[in-house]
């Protein structure tokens, strides 16, 4: 109903109330000799009440005034004049007008109250979302800070009692903690960039093979216990994409795989391109650039698979840690480049496949190699 109201624009609403009152009045013009005008008055009241359900208050008030005039002019004797002969008729018209008005105002108030209730519910939902965020965020930020503060405490208080090995271990934990902290801050900054709409992709020629290997190199610590396979054809052309955004997308997907698959799991990264059906293939034309990241882990529960890209969403039984931001950033950055990201479980239930597909201008590079 709300959408219907929003659908009918203000101007059209006035037209609608004028037209409907006119039609009903004209219809009953032919029956006025057989029907008592009281009955017609009730029918007009029904019309005003119906309009009150669908239209804005001013359009309804207009209908109320119009129908009162129509009553007087067409149905209360003498016809075709606004003059009223008996006090009874005058009182009746007055009551008709008042009831029509009250109808309009009451319906309006009910609708207002409804909207308020909706807004309140939406606010509650947001609050719930924020609480989820605050829970996971405070965990993700406070854990590394505790590690750092704790380690500093020990180093300050008992530097002499610590063995060399232990102080090295403490320093290494502090390093890991600050890297983790930095990663989360980076995620939060990216999220707020997305939220404020402050993302303007800078399209430039990208060598995706270089990009994938760079990300793998940046993540080598996280990937020590995983097996990696990269499947990129030698003839891969250059794609016009935003290097920074695409790097972050690939980074988050591989990072995610490294965190949520068991040790020793296989992560396979593939890049390929397929002619976009909407475009004829020609040098420099748009193709679909496809990046896939698959693993042989446990896959995702089917009933949650459509929610994983939602902001702050975390799987019901996932391990602690994580803010549910990584994948929603992936989605945001992919969409900022007009692409799509999807997730599915492999058919034989042996892991998950993330697929990112961008429409991108491509350039075959053979012509450049020979350019001397």
């Amino acid at each position: 109903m709300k959408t219907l109201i929003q659908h009918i624009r203000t101007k059209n609403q006035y037209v609608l109330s004028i037209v409907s009152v006119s039609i009903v009045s004209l219809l009953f013009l032919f029956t006025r000799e057989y029907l008592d005008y009281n009955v017609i008055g009730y029918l007009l009241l029904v019309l005003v009440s119906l309009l009150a359900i669908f239209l804005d208050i001013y359009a309804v008030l207009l209908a109320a005034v119009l129908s009162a005039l129509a009553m007087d002019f067409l149905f209360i004797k003498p016809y075709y004049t606004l003059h009223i002969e008996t006090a009874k008729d005058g009182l009746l018209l007055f009551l008709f007008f008042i009831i029509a008005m009250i109808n309009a105002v009451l319906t309006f108030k009910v609708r207002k109250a409804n909207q308020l209730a909706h807004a309140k519910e939406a606010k509650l939902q947001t609050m719930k979302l924020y609480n989820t965020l605050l829970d996971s965020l405070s965990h993700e930020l406070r854990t590394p800070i505790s590690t750092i503060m704790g380690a500093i405490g020990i180093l300050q208080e008992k530097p002499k009692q610590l063995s060399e090995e232990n102080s090295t271990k403490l320093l290494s934990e502090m390093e890991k903690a600050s890297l983790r902290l930095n990663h989360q801050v980076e995620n939060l900054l990216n999220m707020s960039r997305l939220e404020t709409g402050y993302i303007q992709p800078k399209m430039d020629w990208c060598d995706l093979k270089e990009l994938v290997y760079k990300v793998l190199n940046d993540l080598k610590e996280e990937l020590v216990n995983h097996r990696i396979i990269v499947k990129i054809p030698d003839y891969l052309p250059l794609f016009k994409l935003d290097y920074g955004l695409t790097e972050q997308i690939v980074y988050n997907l591989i990072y995610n795989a490294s965190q949520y698959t068991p040790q020793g799991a296989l992560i396979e990264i593939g890049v390929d391109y397929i002619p976009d059906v909407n475009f004829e293939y020609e040098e420099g034309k748009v193709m679909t650039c496809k990046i896939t990241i698959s693993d042989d882990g446990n896959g995702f529960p089917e009933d949650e698979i459509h929610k994983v890209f939602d902001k702050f969403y975390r799987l019901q039984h996932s391990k602690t840690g994580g803010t549910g931001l990584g994948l929603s950033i992936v989605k945001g950055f992919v969409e900022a480049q007009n692409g799509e990201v999807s997730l599915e479980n492999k058919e034989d239930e042996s892991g998950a496949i993330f697929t990112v597909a961008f429409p991108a201008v491509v350039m075959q590079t053979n012509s450049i190699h020979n350019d001397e």
Partner: protein
Amino acid sequence: MMNSPTILVIDDESQIRKLLEITLDSNGYKTVFASNAKEGILMSANHPPDLIVLDLGLPDDDGQNVLVQLREWFVNPIIILSVKSAESEIVKALDNGANDYLTKPFRTQELLARIRAALRNQSMVTPEPIVTIDAIQIDFSARIVKVNSEIIKLTATEYTLLSLLVKNEGRVLTHQHILKEVWGPSYIDQTQYLRVFIAQLRKKIESDPNRPKYILTESGIGYRFNIS
């Protein structure tokens, strides 16, 4: 090597100043500090340092402006150390004459490496005719490149590209800068050439072109020739 070079740090955060004081001091540099743009410009004019570490977020002026002002007369290296990590900001600073750019949070080892590289490049008034970096040897006079003592064939463009990178080792060169120097001003937006030739060059000089040791990618900004 020069006799303990003086480094001016212009940063408004006292924690960063303290950290840099300890780091630089213990690595044999003399340090001076300024906490705002005005003070920084004044100090660099009175006693020109060998190198400036400049923060972009200063309380009294935009660091990019300070950089432009300094570059009107200051010829020694300037390294930007900033929380601003947007590619556009970094490219702008490099265009404005910064020698290098490091984003906070940073590792002190990384900063020290950049400082060493910048001072080294500065002191190379007349470039050495033969430069050896790990397994790579470049003879600039004879235009010969050897990897593991074996001469490798480079095309003219590949050679120009490699020598530009090597002469600026340790320092980020923007895509535009490289394109202009190697291909000419009209190629400034033709990044496809750079992508292809960097890949080709890596195939010839890197032992694993997919995990380059020398020619490193600075995402969305440019390339850096690295000497570990």
